[in-house]
C-alpha cells in the first residue's frame, strides 16, 4: 500500500510573504475532509528543506512542495519537478530538485512524482503579515490545488 500524498510547505512564518508555504499548509489542514484528508494526504511544514526530508518522500503516491516564489509568474506556477544536483553548497537548506537528487542516490530509484507550487511573493519584511498580493495569490493557488489533488493522476495543470 502506498503512503499518502505528501504536501510540504516551507518558509518562515515571521518573514512576510515567506510564510506562504506554512500558511498554505495551515489552510489545507483546515480544509481537509474525510475525502481529501485522513489517510490520503499528509502535510508537513518547516522553515526550510533539509537533507533528512528524503526519508519522508519514500513510496508516496506523489509529493507537492509549496514555497514562496520571489520571482516568476503570478499568481503562482505549478509543474513537475526533476531531480537536479546543485553545484556547490553554501547553505544549510536544500532546494526540492536537489532533495530529489539526493533521494535517487539514497534509494537508488527516482523519487515519486513530485511537483512544485511556487506562489508569487513580494515582501519578506520581518514581522510583516502576508501582503495583499500574496494573499490573493495564495487563494488562487489553493483553488487550483484542491481539485488537482482530488483528481491526481489526470493531466497536471501548469500555470508556469
Amino acid at each position, binding site marked *: 500500500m502506498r503512503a499518502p500524498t505528501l504536501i510540504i510547505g516551507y518558509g*518562515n*512564518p*515571521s518573514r512576510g510573504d*515567506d510564510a506562504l508555504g506554512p500558511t498554505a499548509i495551515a489552510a489545507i489542514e483546515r480544509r481537509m475532509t474525510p475525502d481529501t484528508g485522513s489517510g490520503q494526504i499528509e502535510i508537513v511544514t518547516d*522553515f526550510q528543506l*533539509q537533507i*533528512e526530508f528524503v526519508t519522508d518522500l519514500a513510496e508516496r503516491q506523489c509529493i507537492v512542495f509549496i514555497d514562496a516564489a520571489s520571482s516568476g509568474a503570478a499568481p503562482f506556477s505549478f509543474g513537475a519537478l526533476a531531480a537536479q*544536483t546543485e553545484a*556547490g553548497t553554501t547553505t544549510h537548506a536544500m532546494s526540492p530538485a536537489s532533495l530529489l537528487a539526493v533521494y535517487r542516490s539514497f534509494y537508488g530509484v527516482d523519487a515519486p512524482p513530485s511537483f512544485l507550487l511556487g506562489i508569487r511573493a513580494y515582501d519578506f519584511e520581518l514581522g510583516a503579515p502576508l501582503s495583499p498580493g500574496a494573499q490573493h495569490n495564495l487563494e488562487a493557488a489553493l483553488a487550483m490545488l484542491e481539485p488537482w489533488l482530488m483528481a491526481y493522476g489526470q493531466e497536471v495543470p501548469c500555470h508556469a
Partner: protein
Amino acid sequence: MTSSLETAAHTDKLRRVAIDPVSRVEGHGKVTILLDENNQVQQVRLHIVEFRGFEKFIEGRPYWEVPVMVQRLCGICPVSHNLAASKALDIIVGARQLTPTAEKIRRLMHYGQMLQSHALHLYYLSSPDLLFGFDSAIAQRNIVGIAQRYPDAARRGILLRKYGQEIIRITSGKRVHGTGAVPGGVNKSISLEERALLQKDIDEIVLWGLDSVRMVKDLHRQNPALYDNFGSFRCGMMSLAGKDGALDFYDGTLRVRDDQGALLFDGIDDQHYESLIQEEVKPWTYMKFPYLTSIGSEHGWYRVGPLSRIQNCDFIPSPLAEQERQEFIAWSDGPMHAPLAYHWTRMIELLHAAEAIRALLDDPDLVGDDLLAKGMRVHEGVGVLEAPRGTLIHHYRVDDNDLVTMCNLIVSTTHNNQAMNHAIRSVARQYLNGREITEGLLNHIEVAIRAFDPCLSCATHALGKMALVAELVDAEGRLVHSLSRH
C-alpha cells in the same frame, strides 16, 4: 600578520574579488578581496551588508511568547534559541533551579539538536570539500557526489540527522516550532513508548558517532600539513564550562583561555557576561566584533564553538568521547588553532551527544511529571548555552506588564566574526597571492569560513538561503569574471 589585511592603503588602485551571498530573505554576507596589479592580496574582509533587527521584533511582546518566537531566527538551530530564551526567562520567573524532569528533557532536546546540526555540517556541507578536495570538480563537490562515491557516509549523515530531529519532535511536541521549553521548565515529558522508540536505534547512533570521528581524524593523519595548518591563526577560546570543568553544552560558567591554553577567566557567572565581553562596531560591516573588555578589541577577540569547547574543558563526561578528546589534545604540541580542526572536534562533540542521549534515555526522570518550577519574579534574565556553533547569549528585560522591554542576542557566528576574518586572510595569503583567481581557489576561502559552520541567518537575525556569486572586478569597476552557485 594576517590582521594587516583588514584595511589596505590606496584601495582605488586595487582589483576587487567578491564572494557575494545573495538571497531573497537572508542577511546579506559577502567576502571581498582586493588584489594589486601583481595579484598580491592587499585586503580581505568578511562583512555583512544588510541587517534586520530581530531584537526589535521581540521587544514589546509578552515574555511567554519569546521561546517560540525566537525559533524563527534560524531554520538550523531553532532549538538552541528556544532553550537560551527559556533559560533567560527561567531567571525572570524565579525558576533558577528546574525540576529534574524539566532539566533532563531540555538536555535531551539540546543533545538531539547538537547531533543533527553537527551531522548536517559534516556530511552535507563539508564532506564534499574534505573527501573530494577543495578544488575538485564542482559538479561532483556536493552531497549527491558524496552519495554516489561514499554511499555509507551519505546514509550515515541522513540518518543521524533524522534521529536528532526525532528527538526534537518528541521532546518539543512538534517537528517544527515546538513549544517544549517554556519559562520555568517544559510543558511535556516523554512517554514510555517514545523513550522505547529512541532507545531502539541509539546504540547504532553511537557507533556512527565513532565512525564520524574516525573519518575526520583520518583526514588529519593522512595530510597533517594541510589539516593542521590551513588558514591557521592564533587567538583565545571562550565557552561555557560545566561542573568540575566538564564539557557541558547546556549550562555552566564562562571560561576563557589564551592562545597558549592558559586560563584567563574562569567561573564567570553567565548573568554577568557583560562584565566579560563588549562588542565593537566597524564601519564596513553590520556584524559586530565581540572582545574581552579587559584586554581590548585589538587583542581580546576569541573564537567559540567545538574547537574552543574541546580545548577549554577539562574532560568530557562520556567515555568514548573523552578518549577521542585525549587523542585530539595529544595530536598537537599545544593548543590547536587550525580551522579545519573544527571538523574533528565537532565530531567528538557529536559522539558525546550520542553517548549523553543514550545515558539520559535510561534516566527515569525523563518520564516524570513534575515539569515546572517557579519563584520570585524579577525583571531581567540572561540565558547562555553552547549552541552547535558556539556560545549563544540571550538577554531580556521584562516590565511589570510582562512585556519585553529589552532584548539582546549575541550568537555564535558573531563571536566568531573576527576569527573568521583572520582565517580567510590567512588562506588568502597562503593560496591566492600571485595566482589567477579560479573557482577552486575561491572555494578555499569558503572552506575556511565553512569550518566555523557560520549561520548568517543567526548573525544577521534573518532567515533564508544563501547562494553565492563571486565577481572579479578590475580597478575601473568592470566585471572581468563571474562565478555563481545557488
